[in-house]
């Protein structure tokens, strides 16, 4: 009987996965959405963070100039809609992006929103302001922006060094809210003020975050909810049990693992659950500046030994994707087609043949059945890092590499990587925007702060710029595929898999859309309502 229920639950899950948008009757006003939060964010300032633990609770407080349509699962250029801007246009040979701003918008403290606020925000982000963020992790997003100029209170222009069509995609991310000029970065960390559908009420560290409806919101009739309350529950078992017991209307987005999802569907069969890629790539960082991985043959052999499907089947019961740097289609916009992907060494379907080639490379480098290479595989002491590292160690055995797991506390992980105190590292790379500009420049360009392996290929870097300026999407796609292929062939940062995770909510919660190619951009919640 249990297996029948499990099968029914799985079938329902598959159907729900196909449709991520909750459809229902006329939206109703009222109700407070109760959600648990997976951890206590360090502060409340989205611009100073690099985790969606910040975006989920604080994105509803803000507006961007433009935003990805919140009721469509896939983030695309053609579903970017105006928010604080009413319209936009590229002029001056695509080197100036001008926004006409919405009139009559007010900050939550009653002050009027103007173009000066936009200038202040991006000056801060570009490091051109007198005030400074404590941390500014996305400064490089604006490398091609020369300056921000205003024309009256309702017009603002981004003057570029060169054309960069993807700037609009970056501006549409949940990571790009407009901040008020009159509130200091310090105050934004503790008591954020925005123009968005919900106002900040309180943030009790390790306890709760509360938002209330902005009754003066510029989009009339929104939001539907009276408020949102996040209870911080770091213990995943407790959180899921509380959701099952009806204490919460929704789980923390994309935080339900595939095995847990089965539990939820068994214990709360009415819950609506969706599984989507979260555009987080699990990858290997290789210290190519020191032996033994300064030897390109050993790097290639390692990449060819990977059985990516095994990772996915062990960790996600088959629900994950094999791809390159860019998220694979159909959810990903820029991922290589299957045939191209399989032409890359190590991506072919015959794992034994791949490994045979890898062994030959290892023998060429002086290793074999009688002489194994001992390596340390370093990773953060978090299950999503640790678990694939263990599988990796197991797979490397097939090519005469004996791996030893080296788990590192979060506080020490980045300093260790930065000082190149590792041989192999198991790493996760999240992409806020499904766009090559964000991924390539951040992770692979020479000198980038997040290019942990210091991979530097000037030829490829030139191609980064070429694709970045290309306005024809199809042409750009082909350029991106070529670059991605080359990055995998160079073993710049071998991608193992792209994960999929689940989100669940109670059946009376309507209007929720889980984004399918980013887990950072879909939390405005102004269209969410409760049918009860």
């Amino acid at each position, binding site marked *: 009987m249990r297996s029948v229920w499990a099968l029914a639950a799985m079938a329902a899950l598959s159907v729900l996965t196909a449709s991520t948008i909750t459809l229902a009757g006329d939206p109703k006003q009222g109700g407070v959405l109760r959600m648990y939060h997976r951890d206590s964010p360090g502060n409340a300032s989205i611009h100073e963070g690099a985790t969606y633990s910040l975006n989920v609770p604080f994105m509803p407080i803000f507006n961007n100039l433009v935003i990805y349509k919140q009721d469509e699962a896939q983030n695309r250029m053609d579903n970017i809609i105006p928010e604080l801007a009413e319209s936009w246009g590229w002029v001056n040979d695509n080197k100036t992006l001008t926004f006409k701003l919405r009139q009559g918008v007010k900050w939550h403290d009653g002050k009027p929103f103007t173009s000066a606020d936009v200038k202040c925000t991006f000056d801060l982000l570009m490091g051109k302001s007198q005030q400074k963020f404590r941390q500014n992790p996305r400064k490089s997003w604006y490398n091609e922006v020369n300056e921000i100029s205003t024309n009256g209170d309702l017009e603002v222009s981004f003057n570029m060094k060169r054309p960069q069509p993807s700037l609009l995609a970056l501006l549409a991310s949940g990571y790009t809210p407009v901040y008020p000029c009159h509130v200091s970065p310090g105050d934004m960390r503790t008591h954020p003020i925005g123009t968005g559908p919900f106002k900040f009420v309180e943030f009790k560290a390790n306890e709760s975050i509360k938002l209330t409806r902005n009754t003066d919101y510029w989009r009339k009739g929104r939001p539907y909810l009276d408020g949102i309350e996040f209870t911080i529950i770091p213990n995943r078992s407790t959180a899921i049990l509380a959701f099952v*017991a009806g204490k919460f209307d929704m789980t923390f987005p994309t935080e339900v693992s595939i095995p847990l999802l089965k539990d939820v569907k068994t214990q709360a069969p009415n819950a609506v659950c969706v599984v989507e890629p979260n555009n987080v790539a699990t990858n290997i960082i290789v210290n190519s500046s020191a032996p033994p991985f300064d030897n390109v043959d050993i790097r290639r052999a390692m990449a060819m030994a990977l059985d990516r499907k095994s990772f996915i089947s062990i960790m996600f019961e088959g629900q994950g994707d094999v791809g390159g740097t860019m998220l694979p289609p159909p959810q990903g916009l820029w991922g290589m087609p299957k045939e191209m992907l399989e032409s890359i060494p190590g991506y072919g379907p015959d794992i034994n043949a791949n490994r045979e080639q890898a062994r030959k490379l290892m023998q060429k480098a002086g290793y074999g059945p009688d002489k194994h290479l001992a390596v340390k595989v370093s990773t953060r002491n978090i299950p999503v890092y640790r678990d694939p590292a263990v599988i990796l160690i197991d797979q490397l055995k097939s090519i005469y590499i004996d791996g030893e797991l080296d788990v590192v506390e979060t506080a020490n992980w980045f300093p260790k990587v930065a000082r190149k105190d590792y041989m192999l590292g198991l790493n996760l790379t999240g992409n806020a925007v499904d766009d090559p500009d964000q991924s390539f420049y951040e992770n692979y360009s020479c000198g980038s702060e997040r290019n942990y392996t210091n991979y530097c290929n000037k030829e490829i870097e030139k191609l980064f710029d070429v694709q970045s300026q290309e306005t024809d999407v199809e042409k750009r796609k082909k350029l991106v595929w070529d670059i991605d292929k080359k990055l995998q062939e160079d073993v710049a940062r071998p991608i193992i898999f792209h994960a999929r995770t689940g989100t669940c909510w109670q059946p009376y919660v309507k209007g929720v859309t889980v984004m399918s190619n980013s887990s950072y951009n879909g939390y405005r919640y102004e269209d969410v309502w409760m049918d009860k």
Partner: protein
Amino acid sequence: MFAYLVRRLFLMLVTLFGISIVIFLLLRIVPGNIVDILFAAAGYVDPADKANLEKELGIDQPLVVQYWHWISGFLRGDFGYSYVSEKPALQEILPRIPITARLAGLALLFSASIGIPLGVISAVKQGTRLDYALRIVSLSGLSLPSFWLGLLILTASVAMFGQMPIFNPNPQTWLEAFATYAVPAAAVGFRSAALTMRITRSSMLEVLRQDYIRTARAKGASETAVNYRHALKNAILPVITVIGIEAAFLIGGLIVTETVFNIPGVARFLVEAIRWRDYPIVQNLVMLMAVVVVSANFIVDMLYAVFDPRIRYTD
């Protein structure tokens, strides 16, 4: 008695000073600080930003200066600001203390009110089925980790009643407030009750064999009077010691219980603060705990003197 009190008080102050040094140094020995963690979370590091932040938080100063700032502030009641929330540390710590104090108090109450009577019964009924049953209960209490017991309670509540006893920050009635704390207190107090039961049993068995107990029985005292007035009074000292020690150890159990039951008390808060290397919170909170534990020990010592005249006469 006065000399005894003064000596204990002096020892208490020396202990607290030593603890303050240990707390301060241990935190600095642990690799990484708040700035490392913030930049690790952001996945990048800008040396200039990093240096600015270290300066802003004062962690670029020599250790002696940092220690002096902290300890002088602590003595003045100025606990500084949390590195993470940027709110006054006292404002972060104070609201959480009553929650944990209530939980700890209830757990200790549970421990004493279950452990002592059952320990007495077990001793008095030595060798009977009841004794064996109680010993099995006490052994299981010592063997079950409180986080596992907590999770089991939560899972069973959801499976059986479709509800779970998760923390309610605004209980409407006294009963609701009690229910909010009772289940987690029982989960964390079970181990302590088991220990108390075992100590009470063994201590009682020793006392029950003494001559004066036989004399009391010979004089016609009732069993209740013999067991509770004569035997328990003399057997209670080791039990008080254990309860005093357990009060200190309880914080360890509370960390997991607060996490499992999602109770926003100081124990869970402390773990989070350690994870962030939030020095002002960790140092002040641990120091406050040390003050409580050392004071509790001081009170236990005083109680020894009250219960055992030999101690006060010796001193």
